[in-house]
């Protein structure tokens, strides 16, 4: 389980995160939603240690990530898998090399074990035959899948996905969402997904946190989402024509 307590972050005179707390449970996909500029990505970066919050705590199964020493932080980081918005695949490596990279860097497995594990992950995301291709030779959806394969190759306890659907068509988006949800359940991972995609919310929104102006203003699931009485959330979801028509 991941717990965040009173996370605050300011850039200059801009208060991006104004005391956000919450918890993320194993085996569940928690979506963090909100309009652009509400601090979703900054919150994710604070959670994974790419941005240091001004205040607050991030606890991974009770272990404080922000105050731990470098070795403790490294140990927690090695239990994380992150899917970046642009997939962040290494351009100079093939798909297979990208997936096996964490194994090369962080484990002492034999060559065969590394290849087998990487291939297993690629097969899990439906790209078993794409290992020899370069990232520049595959589509955006495939890159996301490779990103997921790389994120799960070390059997992470925590999976973070930053806008996994950005730039993808609705069909591919749903496939990516379903894949994330399946993997979360299958491996009992604590998954946090940053998104503003309504389809994702309806598809995999087991638990949803809505951020507005750096604060958490609503928490619920996909069923309660459209019946909420929070004005900012209603404005956010009613921007989607489909939802407006569903409500009618």
């Amino acid at each position, binding site marked *: 389980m991941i717990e965040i307590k009173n996370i605050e972050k300011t850039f200059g005179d801009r208060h991006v995160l104004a005391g956000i707390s919450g918890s993320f449970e194993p085996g569940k996909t928690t979506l963090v939603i909100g309009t652009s500029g509400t601090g979703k990505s900054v919150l994710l970066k604070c959670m994974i240690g790419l941005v240091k919050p001004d205040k607050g705590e991030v606890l991974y199964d009770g272990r404080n990530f922000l105050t731990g020493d470098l070795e403790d932080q490294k140990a927690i980081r090695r239990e994380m898998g*992150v899917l970046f*918005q*642009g997939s*962040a695949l290494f*351009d100079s490596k093939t798909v297979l090399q990208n997936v096996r990279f964490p194994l090369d860097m962080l484990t002492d497995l034999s060559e065969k074990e590394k290849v087998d594990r990487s291939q297993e992950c690629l097969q899990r995301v439906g790209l078993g035959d794409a290992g020899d291709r370069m990232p520049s030779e595959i589509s955006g959806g495939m890159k996301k899948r490779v990103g997921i394969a790389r994120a799960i190759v070390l059997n992470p306890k925590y999976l973070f996905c930053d806008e996994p659907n950005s730039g993808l068509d609705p069909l591919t988006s749903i496939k990516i969402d379903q894949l994330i949800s399946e993997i979360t359940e299958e491996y009992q991972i604590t998954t946090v997904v940053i998104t503003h995609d309504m389809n994702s919310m309806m598809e995999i929104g087991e638990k949803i946190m809505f951020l507005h102006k750096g604060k958490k203003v609503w928490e619920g699931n996909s069923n309660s989402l459209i019946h909420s009485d929070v004005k900012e959330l209603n404005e956010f979801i009613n921007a989607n024509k489909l939802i407006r028509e569903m409500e009618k």
Partner: protein
Amino acid sequence: MSRLGSYFIFLGTLFRNREKLRVYMSLILNECTSIGVGSIFIVALVNTFIGAVTCVQTAYNLTNPFVPKNIIALIVRDSSILELAPTLSCIVLAGKVGSNIAGELGTMRITEQIDALEVMGINSSSYLVLPKVIASVLMFPLLVIMAGFLAILGGYIAGTLAGVISSEDYVTGLRVDYKPFGVTFALIKTVVFAFLVSTISAYQGYNVRGGALEVGAASTSAVTNSCIAIVAADFVLTQMLLT
């Protein structure tokens, strides 16, 4: 001043919390190929012509019949070894290697590849930059040794073909008053230049924020700042080692 401080902090991060040594070996070899082998052509071309031009221009300016012709070869030799081969080659390499390092790291930064390394618990600056610095420090001197030979050869070919100096005079001139320390001096300079070019360019690329425009600006700054650092260090080292 704050940028200078940030540059030194960046240098510190290269050597702290490094990965296992075996990780760096293949990376260093790859960088040696890219930086060293990939730069042979341009360094060879520039230095051969610079040697040729130095020879012909020196001959053009030596109008006094009492000055022996072999002085031309001596001037080509000393200017090539002491200044042209190390400094000019490193300026050329700042353009080729420096912009490449800054562009590569800058692109990795804006496409979140560096963030991906960080979240895996890998020291990204050490993993990405240290092999480039080591490869530069190893390969630049080899390129400069080649550059020195080719500049002198270029002078010989141009001088004899243009008829400004005979083959015998050129060879004699090369052996007149030769000081081996000149080569040591050139290699010391080159190692310093290699470190400056690779670290300054890496610093510019690694700290890019923004998009493609900023990566382009970082590449330009990498080359400009590297060239400034080279000429400044050239002066300081010349003062320290030759006076």
